[in-house]
């Protein structure tokens, strides 16, 4: 039968191709969706300027990327993990368990987190305290810890208009969420003095008090967005009272729809983040598997190209897109050139 012939030949072709394409010739990257645009800009320029194929960049979030990174060594594992936070000790331990011992940590620059609302709405000048009061699960009122009673912004801070509280914050799988909790909610919690009250209520357990501080209200006034910033933008489009948490680069690409709020009196910009004036920023990293250097063609060249002055420097395309370039870029270049691994070993 011609059908059977066709099937067997097709299967043979499939089997043959599976064996021929054993060696991987492009760099594979996965991780933070915040780093994704920068990584894809670099990957594209890398493919243009070198004889290596364009690296493949997937997203999925910092934690997901590091998890795949730590799965082991070999062509079926990724070479580079992008992260919008530092790798955790627990992740390093998992890595070591699976044989991924030599990890090169590369800091590419800084990213600002901004608070933005609909362009035609009210203008806000926030402080961490305002955000803590607006979205925290429990707050201290008259010395007693109660469920968050505030429903409009003017109850949080009399200087604000009487706009209903509707916050869109990144979901827990995002690296952005951690920075938001640390630098905004926890800072506000400590500044109001609520932290001490909560700590006392928790029997002086500092860790538990911190955890209680950053618990967000679940009555619908604060909504976790698990998707990307485009989803947050769509929410604000449909609910003009909404205020969302964005990356600086995303805001700068959508200035026709969003207006940005100041934080502690500072307007977020690449300059104010570079000087450290704007408080809510975080470093961005990528992690390279040293064992893959020399095995996967172009891996080291990709890492070096990423942190080269013409790419990650203050006039490079990454800074143009919204990355705050690292003042200590030369040190980072040294790290990549020497293949210096985490923990100072070798």
């Amino acid at each position, binding site marked *: 039968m011609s059908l059977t012939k066709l*099937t067997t030949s097709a299967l043979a072709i499939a089997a043959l191709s599976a064996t*021929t394409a054993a060696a991987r010739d*492009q760099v594979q990257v996965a991780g933070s969706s915040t780093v994704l645009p920068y990584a*894809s800009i670099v990957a594209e320029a890398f493919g243009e*300027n070198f004889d290596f194929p364009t690296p493949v960049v997937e997203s999925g979030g910092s934690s997901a990327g590091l998890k795949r990174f730590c799965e082991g060594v070999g062509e*079926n594992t990724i070479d580079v993990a992008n992260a919008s936070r530092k790798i955790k000790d627990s992740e390093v331990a998992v890595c070591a368990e699976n044989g991924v011992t030599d990890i090169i940590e590369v800091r590419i620059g800084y990213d600002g987190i901004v608070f933005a609302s609909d362009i035609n709405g009210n203008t806000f000048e926030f402080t961490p305290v305002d955000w803590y009061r607006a979205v925290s699960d429990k707050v201290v009122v008259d010395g007693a810890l109660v469920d968050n009673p505030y429903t409009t912004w003017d109850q949080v801070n009399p200087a604000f208009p009487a706009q209903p509280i509707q916050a869109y914050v990144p979901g827990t799988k995002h690296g952005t969420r951690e920075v938001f909790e640390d630098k905004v909610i926890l800072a506000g919690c400590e500044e109001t003095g609520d932290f001490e009250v909560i700590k006392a209520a928790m029997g002086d357990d500092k860790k538990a008090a911190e955890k209680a501080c950053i618990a967000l209200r679940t009555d619908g006034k604060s909504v976790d967005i698990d998707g990307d910033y*485009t989803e947050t933008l769509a929410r604000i489009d449909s609910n003009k009272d909404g205020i969302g948490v964005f990356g600086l*680069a*995303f805001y700068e690409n959508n200035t026709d729809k969003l207006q940005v709020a100041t934080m502690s009196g500072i307007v977020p910009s690449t300059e104010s983040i570079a000087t450290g004036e704007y408080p809510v920023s975080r470093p961005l990293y990528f992690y390279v598997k040293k064992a893959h250097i020399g095995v996967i063609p172009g891996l080291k060249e990709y890492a070096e190209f990423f942190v080269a002055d*013409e790419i990650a420097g203050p006039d490079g395309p990454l800074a143009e897109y919204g990355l705050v370039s690292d003042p200590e870029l030369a040190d980072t270049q040294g790290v990549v050139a020497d293949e210096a691994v985490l923990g100072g070993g070798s």
Partner: protein
Amino acid sequence: MTDMPIENAGAAPAPRKGSLLEQDARTRKRNRAEARFKAYGILAIAMGLLMLVILLTTIVGRGTGAFQQTFLTVEVELLEEKLDKKGNRDLADIKKVSTFGYAPLMRAALEAKVAEIGFETDLKSKEMAALLSKSAAADLRNFVLENPDMIGETVEFKFLAQSRVDGYLKERVTRASIANDKNISAAQLDLVDALVAEGSLQKQFNLAFITGADASDQRPEAAGMGVSMIGSLFMMLVVLVLALPIGVAASIYLEEFAPKNWITDIIEVNIANLAAVPSIVFGILGLAVFINYMHLPNSAPLVGGLVLTLMTLPTIIISTRASLKAVPPSIRDAALGVGASKMQSVFHHVLPLAAPGILTGTIIGLAQALGETAPLLLIGMVGFIASNAPETIGEGLMSPNSAMPAQIYEWAKRADPAFYERAWGGIIILLVFLITMNAIAVMLRRRFERRW
């Protein structure tokens, strides 16, 4: 039961009062109910059509822009001192000049252009060159690498304009909306107006959107569907090559040869259930089995095709069995009667008669697989992936690629609004594929299907 009506017929109904032509209350009520039901039906169809019209007009309205792109024609002097300092036309030396090294040429070209049209402006040459896409330097570099003899000459190029300029010509970007935009300024838009008036900046059909590769976040104007289309094509190939023979063989056995017992009953129930399993489940299965256990490469169309094969198999089995069932038993009996074996009766008579139905089912199954995104998310086919066009069939199956729906999803996520337009444009291309496939299925059915 059978004699009931006869008994009833004997008992005559009460004699009717009044004229036959006049409807009584009951009849009127029944007629009204019928009229109401018809109205509901028409309303339901009208609602459905309205939704379809809204959907199509939205897609076409938002997506057609992606098929047009703004291009700027400039003359670039390929300076020898920048591109080939040693002057020996050695390709290795020329390759050392990265795309950043080409930026001064673009700036000079734009400055010359502005001087040529006699436009007075305070813009610096860097801001003028910013009107061009970031991909322009790469285009120029590729041209020089292909034609090293042209170094030193002045060549006319047609470069992509950057997405904000393109948006301005498509009226997506307005002077009001760029107030806080650092990607373009009002002075640059003045220059754009002057260039449009002069004729060197214009919109035209953009073939690269259909044939090109994905581009990074900084250059939405250069992004295209082409490579992800190839990815989809390879996945469909895998699905066709695996699902069709396996599906047809399974259904022939189940329908014609298998004994009827509780085992085949369980298999039947399970196939019907599999057809209703959400596609994301197949994605997780693919991740666990094909990538983690069998160590097939991530993001490879082969893995995508295998996952979609699993998803399509039940659809093909169910439709094949239905079309085998539709072949009347008399054909089988006649074949067996003249001495054909069971297998001969199936392959010589039943299968050819059922073929149009099988093909229709397969094409509809393929169309369903073509539009599937969810399982692809899990096997790494979403991201900045569709950037290398494969060169051989083996590479096409094994090297990382995306698929059309995954590419659309990826574009819809990106920050620059210009990508949003491309996502809608991508939907148009995908719909064209789906409508074509379904039209072929309908045609096959109309032309070859036999009714008994």
